[in-house]
């Protein structure tokens, strides 16, 4: 077992054989200048600061053979998996399925829907396409984790209070031990970044633990201990 002694609200112990790094929705539509997120008036710089530390963590995690899973939020081209309440929300002409700067907004297969180049999944790393904020609803994530024997999740991605939080809450109810990586999750709103992380660790860690990626990287072994998953 490895331990992150300085995690909030207390030490976080994990076994790398039963741990996965879960990278949530690091998609161009949310992170790229000129993309959907920015077109809604958001400052993508608030999210882009997560890319460098996450890229470094990904490299270390790959080097030791840790399980890595990516997610993308998006919908089928005919919008058959998009609830009407979700579709009709938001500014007219900037809604899901509308043409955007990087293709149709949040539609599977479009350029903007894919993951940013810096964090591109490697062959063999599962990419979970999800229609909601949570990565467990209407996906095979739970089955995939069970099949690999995963019990602990190191969670990164965007945005902290929406898709990261919803997924961590789902994972927590399913008994997974979640460590949210404070510098690898991002929000367009600094207030929500702060309270989002505080809420995870509140009440004795009601949804999990919080630490920085540097603390995780320092705890990981320097040499490969796991075979890449088949």
């Amino acid at each position, binding site marked *: 077992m490895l331990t992150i002694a300085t995690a909030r609200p*207390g030490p976080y112990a994990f076994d790398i054989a039963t741990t996965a790094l879960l990278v949530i929705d690091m998609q161009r539509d949310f992170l790229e200048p000129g993309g959907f997120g920015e077109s*809604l008036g958001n400052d993508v710089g608030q999210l882009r600061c997560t890319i460098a530390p996450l890229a470094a963590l990904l490299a270390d995690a790959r080097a030791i053979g840790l399980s890595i899973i990516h997610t993308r939020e998006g919908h089928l081209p005919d919008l058959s998996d998009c*609830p*009407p*309440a*979700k579709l*009709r*929300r*938001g*500014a007219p002409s900037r809604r899901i399925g509308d043409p955007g700067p990087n293709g149709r907004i949040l539609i599977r297969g479009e350029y903007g829907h894919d993951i940013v180049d810096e964090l591109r999944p490697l062959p063999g790393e599962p990419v979970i396409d999800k*229609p*909601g*904020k*949570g990565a467990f*609803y*209407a996906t095979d994530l739970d089955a995939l984790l069970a099949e690999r024997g995963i019990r602990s999740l190191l969670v990164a991605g965007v945005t902290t*209070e*929406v898709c990261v*939080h*919803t997924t961590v*809450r*789902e994972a*927590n*109810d*399913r*008994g997974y*031990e979640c460590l949210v990586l404070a510098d690898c999750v991002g929000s*367009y*709103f600094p*207030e*929500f970044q702060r*309270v989002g992380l*505080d*809420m995870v660790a*509140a*009440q*004795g*860690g*009601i*949804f999990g633990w919080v630490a920085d990626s540097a603390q995780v990287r320092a705890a990981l072994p320097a040499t490969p201990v796991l075979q890449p998953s088949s």
Partner: protein
Amino acid sequence: MGSIGPVPANPYPWPYDGVADTARTALLCIDWQTDFCGPGGYVDAMGYDIGLTRAGLPATVRLLEHARALGMLVVHTREGHEPELSDLPANKRWRSARIGAEIGSAGPAGRILVRGEPGWEIVPEVAPLPGEVVVDKPGKGAFYATNLDLVLRTRGITHLILTGITTDVCVHTTMREANDRGYECLILADCTGATDKANHDAALHMVTMQGGVFGCVTTSDDVIAATAK
């Protein structure tokens, strides 16, 4: 039967489709249990101010009467575990022990968060009437490992009004699950509460951002005023 809406709400007049048919709208009363908000429950016994978790009770009592008079579906939820704790994840048990309230151990009102114990029961002010649906859930979210989705879809429910405790934990988790499932959600600021007022406020604020990422926020008065019989 009647209709609700448009209700003045933040960030848009609720619901998105203009008017909610009361036959297709359910009132959710989440975890109004003695252990969380009742005198003699474990939150009370641990020295927390249950005034904060009880703050939403009077408005919920009034709204519950309103919903019952309209013939709306009312669904109550209770967080709790089987007596043998077979549905209690190990980390949830460990964490509860760390803060001195281990689930399954003897508490001030019976075994803490165990189904059938006095502290697990819903407080009398908002107790379910015979025939009302009560969903027992092992997690924070009311959809995970329960029949809630099936019950709502069977009744043709498309819109949800949320009350209960605590705002940032069980109410928010349930609202997020409901939103992903396509339900149009309205959370009531005066019918919810948290052990930390700042978390209550932040949780409500989060709902209102990005065009209503999980739905809308309003008050019970606005819902009642926007009802047509």
